[in-house]
């Protein structure tokens, strides 16, 4: 076997493993003239952990606000050991935090935390989305009565939808830096949220019943008629006019296709 591969495997085991793995590495791969071998290995261990932890902290500020910075730092070390990083691009690190949290006993008393992680990962995906196409709704003005139901729309790629049995939009809002309002959150009430990029900022807002089904259908290229059908199936009082107006004004609906 390649000596280089053995060294690198031993190094990774020492960085993420126990004292025995450290001693095996130090005993086998360190040059006899190396000064401060233990300290040198520790410096790498610190630096690897810090790089991974700071990526996790940057992606999950609300999880961090809920559990506190010291708790998050300790959790990030455990996550780094148990869930390997799979990319040289640290923006891709941390995707599995929701699944990790679901079985992480120290946060068992915060059952909504995996959904908060799911929300924050999607916020990151929304930041990474391509630019939205220019708004072009000329097609709407050409409509005559009756053919609106066949319309299809292109939505801004900078958005995601997420359904939760927890009040995600409220949890997100009260944990924003500088939030001054009421901190009471009704945990009995689940929320479906829209995550939307507007002017380079990402906003999270709660959707009305039926709205999620409506937007998801439009985004998949369904006709307006079918989208309304999905929405009213969930909410007989679905207010098409208000919902359309809101998402045309926010720029989520970009073009008629």
């Amino acid at each position, binding site marked *: 076997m*390649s*000596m*280089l*591969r053995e*060294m*690198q*495997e031993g*190094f*990774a085991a020492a*960085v993420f493993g126990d004292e025995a793995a450290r001693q095996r590495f130090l005993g*086998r*791969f*360190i*040059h006899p*003239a*190396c*000064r*401060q*071998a233990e*300290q*040198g*290995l520790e*410096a*790498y261990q610190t*630096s*690897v952990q810090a*790089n*991974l932890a700071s*990526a996790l902290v940057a992606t999950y500020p609300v999880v961090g606000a809920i559990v506190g910075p010291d708790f998050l730092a300790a959790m990030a070390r455990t996550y780094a050991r148990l869930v*390997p*990083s*799979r*990319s*040289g*691009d*640290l*923006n*891709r*690190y941390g995707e599995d935090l929701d699944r990790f949290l679901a079985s992480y006993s120290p946060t068992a008393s915060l059952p909504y935390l995996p959904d908060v992680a799911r929300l924050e990962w999607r916020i990151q995906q*929304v*930041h*990474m*989305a*391509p*630019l*939205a196409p220019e708004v072009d709704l000329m097609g709407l003005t050409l409509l005559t009565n009756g053919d609106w139901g066949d319309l299809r729309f292109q939505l801004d790629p*900078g958005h995601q939808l997420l359904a939760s049995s927890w009040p995600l939009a409220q949890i997100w809002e009260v944990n924003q830096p500088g939030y001054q309002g009421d901190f009471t959150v009704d945990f009995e009430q689940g929320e479906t949220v829209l995550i939307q*990029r507007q002017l*380079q900022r990402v906003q999270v807002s709660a959707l009305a019943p039926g709205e999620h089904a409506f937007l998801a259908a439009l985004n998949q290229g369904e006709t307006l008629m079918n989208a309304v059908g999905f929405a009213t199936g969930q909410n007989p009082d679905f207010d098409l006019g208000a919902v359309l107006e809101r998402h045309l004004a926010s720029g989520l609906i970009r073009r008629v296709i």
Partner: protein
Amino acid sequence: MVVNPVPVPSGVLDRVTSSAVARTHATLPLAAGIGLRSPHLPLVREQSPACPWFEVHSENWFSAGGPALAVLDRIRRDYPLSLHGVGLSLGGADDLCLGHLEQLKALVDRVQPAAVSEHLCWSAIGGRWLNDLLPLPYSREALDRVCDHVDQMQEFLGRPILVENVSSYLRLLPEEMPEWTFVAEVARRTGCGLLLDVNNIYVSACNHGFSADEFLAGIPVSAVKEIHLAGYEETEGLLVDTHSRPVWPAVWDLYVRVLNRFGPVSTLIEWDQDIPDFATLQAEAAKAQALLDIALESRHVHAA
């Protein structure tokens, strides 16, 4: 002797020169630039501060969204730009990650940078990334591995790259040559250029007890295309490459000796932790520029 010259396809140059928007920067300016990090992006975008060139970390832009890439396009229009990789793992026993190379190539094609660089280190093993610049043993096996990967990277990108010496805190086995021979051999065998990090030479020289000047003497003059300067921190006698403070006086002294040996070379100030305000970075770059100006003047005198 260049064993593996890497042809630059003429199409690449044509695209640059025919572009009506992008200014052409075939090489980095002989001036002191600044490593551009996210806290200063808004200021650079809105105020176009004085700076002869910028360098950004390639991977930071791999999954950037449309608005962020538009900012990068704008910066590229106003300044010469270099793409500096921190995650390809050129010294890894694993094969290079093709997805990583593809993302890099897409970014290089978009930005048409003046330089593309990577580190002489490893970052991943067995498909697991450690996301750090980890040390190599200076062995023949590691040298072969790095050279194969540099060849592959240059062929994939269709352009020569620069490789950078890293700081190290461990001396690894088997050691079959000094670091400077390893670095010089990579350049000789692959035809790549060298990015000399003067702070890293100083840090490794102190940690391992070799002479920084002996390192410099082992590096071929014509291969050096870029220089990095940064600040380290010391903990219990070990120097750690934190990029968290100003360049130390001893590293400025070494930089002067580097300029004496290699002549004026494009230089970059790097600062990655506890990042100060932009004016502090400009002041550090001005210090480097003053020393570069002396080197440029002295070359002019020699030429006359």
